[in-house]
């Protein structure tokens, strides 16, 4: 059967972004009790897999690396319709950069077994490097197409996908197995359903640590991370208020002018 792996990340709830702080010393996120949710773009990645499954039948595995609480988002994916869950959780995985994350996930994918397609979100809402997808592909030695907006054709081993570019798009024909990172334009994710939640009762989540994955402590987590965040600066975005004077028509004219000058119109 066609096998799909979807990588999903637990991120601090973007709705409570105002409560997230960055530790000035360790340069890591201080979660401050902000609940963890499924990375928004990963819902689109899962939806792509679910839509494929509806058309052609497939087995969907969901894979996440994170603390034990990330099990909740894996469970949520099972309730949304994925078949099986895998959680890579080990103290040794903590503090991973994109490289170490991708390495660990690639090891997880290999351990899950043969696969045809890996879907990732284009980016996470917290780290947002957009590197994890491409780096997984590199570790697995398979092609990757990032930022896909449409799957134009599934044709056996050859898929045609449309991918976003800054001022246009690319149409790419790619041989699977491959990694795709997806954008919001790809689909409309389904909502959780009560019966989906009930069905998820029977679905399993397998948890693996470094031993089960057969990786060394030095190759994962902070120790396995070649990139170091040396400085983090916050951008101060202040609102500027200007009161326009004059008659209504004049004010409208001025407003249009200002918006045009600001590059908004």
């Amino acid at each position, binding site marked *: 059967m066609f096998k799909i792996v979807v990588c999903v990340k637990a991120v601090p709830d973007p709705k409570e972004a105002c409560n997230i702080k960055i530790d000035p010393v360790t340069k890591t996120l201080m979660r401050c009790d902000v609940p963890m949710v499924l990375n928004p773009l990963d819902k689109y990645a899962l939806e792509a897999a679910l839509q494929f499954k509806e058309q052609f039948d497939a087995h969907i595995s969901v894979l996440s690396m994170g603390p034990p609480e990330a099990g909740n988002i894996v*469970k*949520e994916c099972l309730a949304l319709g994925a078949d099986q869950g895998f959680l890579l959780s080990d103290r040794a995985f903590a503090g991973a950069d994109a490289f170490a994350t991708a390495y660990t996930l690639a090891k997880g994918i290999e351990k899950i077994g043969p696969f045809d397609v890996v879907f990732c979100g284009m980016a996470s809402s917290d780290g947002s490097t957009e590197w994890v997808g491409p780096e997984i592909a590199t570790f697995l030695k398979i092609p990757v197409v990032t930022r896909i907006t449409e799957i134009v054709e599934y044709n056996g081993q050859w898929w045609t996908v449309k991918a976003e570019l800054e001022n246009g798009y690319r149409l790419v024909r790619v041989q699977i197995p491959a990694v795709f990172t997806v954008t919001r334009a790809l689909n409309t994710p389904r*909502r*959780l*359903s*009560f019966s989906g*939640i*009930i069905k998820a009762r029977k679905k399993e989540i397998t948890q693996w640590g470094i031993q089960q994955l057969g990786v060394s402590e030095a190759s994962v987590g902070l120790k396995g991370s070649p990139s170091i965040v040396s400085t983090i600066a916050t951008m101060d975005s202040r609102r500027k208020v200007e009161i326009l004077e004059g008659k209504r028509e004049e004010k409208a004219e001025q407003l249009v002018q200002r918006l045009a000058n600001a590059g908004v119109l």
Partner: protein
Amino acid sequence: MIDFTLTEEQEMFRKAAQEFAETQVAPKVPEMEETGKVSLELVKAMAEAEMMALTIPEEYGGLGLGYTARLIALEEISKVSVAAGMMLQVFALGIEPILKYGTDAQKKKFLPGLATGERLASTAVTEATGGSDPTGIRSTYKKDGEDYILNGRKCFITNAHIADTITVLAKDDENPKAFSTFIMEKGMDGFKATHEENKVGMRGCNTGELAYENCRVPKENLVGVEGKGLGVALAAIGDVGRGGMVGCALGLQAACLDVSVKFANERILYGKPISRLQTIQNKLADMKIDLEAGRLLGYRAASMQDKGERSSNEFAVAKYFSTEAAQRAAKMASDIHGGYGCMEEYAVSRYMRDSFVLGPSAGTSDIMKVIIARWTLS
């Protein structure tokens, strides 16, 4: 050990209900407020989201999730629209007598359609001559061969104009002490929904009158034992009806608190947000205390109900507390908003109107006290 936490799965139900409320219910609210009419699109969306199937067992096409899950769904939906919560709460109230007292044939006939939302349910007890005192009703039934002939009128019935399957309480034509409950179906000769109420709150939830004139109801539609119908109707109202009102009230309490916190943090007076004023904080704290207490009472009763225990007294306490608390919350929320709280553009004005409609349904606060006192003295 007492565990006051919801399970991971129940949290997921909450999330599902929240997503439903935010994406499917919220967009319908302005139209419901404006017209006071039911949004049939919303009813359809509720059916698609399996909201009517919650309490119906799987063998009859439902989800068999029980009453805690139902309370969660009602709370989340009512947080966005009490009217939508009320409509849904009475679907389950209409389903309950069939679930609890129906024959296997009745269950097979009615429940699958009610689970999918193909049929909609209600329960009709109240009449002009009997609300708090259901024995005061004047609707009658009379045996005629294998059938019953029903005559009478009901008032203040939720979903009156949209329901297809309505459990109706009537009195024996010859014995004023004997009551029976019947399933009446839309389209029965002589049975119709008449006047539609125009309520101050819960706009978009249909409330109206039913009339039946020489309406022939087959004996297959008698629910429970003939003559014991008061018990059938009151049992459903006792836990499912009151429990449903608790869900509506908790949702409203939570909504009042949410908008109050937001407004208090945004409204700047004396150079700082009014949330820094102790008087405002006091109100927020009062609302929070009420919400926490209401939830504990409501979810305790629902978990008893799920275990199959008698829960109508506990629900009476929860119903009294949470509907009264919802009125207090709406008043405080609107006070916190100052003049803005009187304007229709602000949701609090709707909360204020909705809060007053919560009281009477499934028994007034006075009646809850009568029940609670009887429980206390027993």
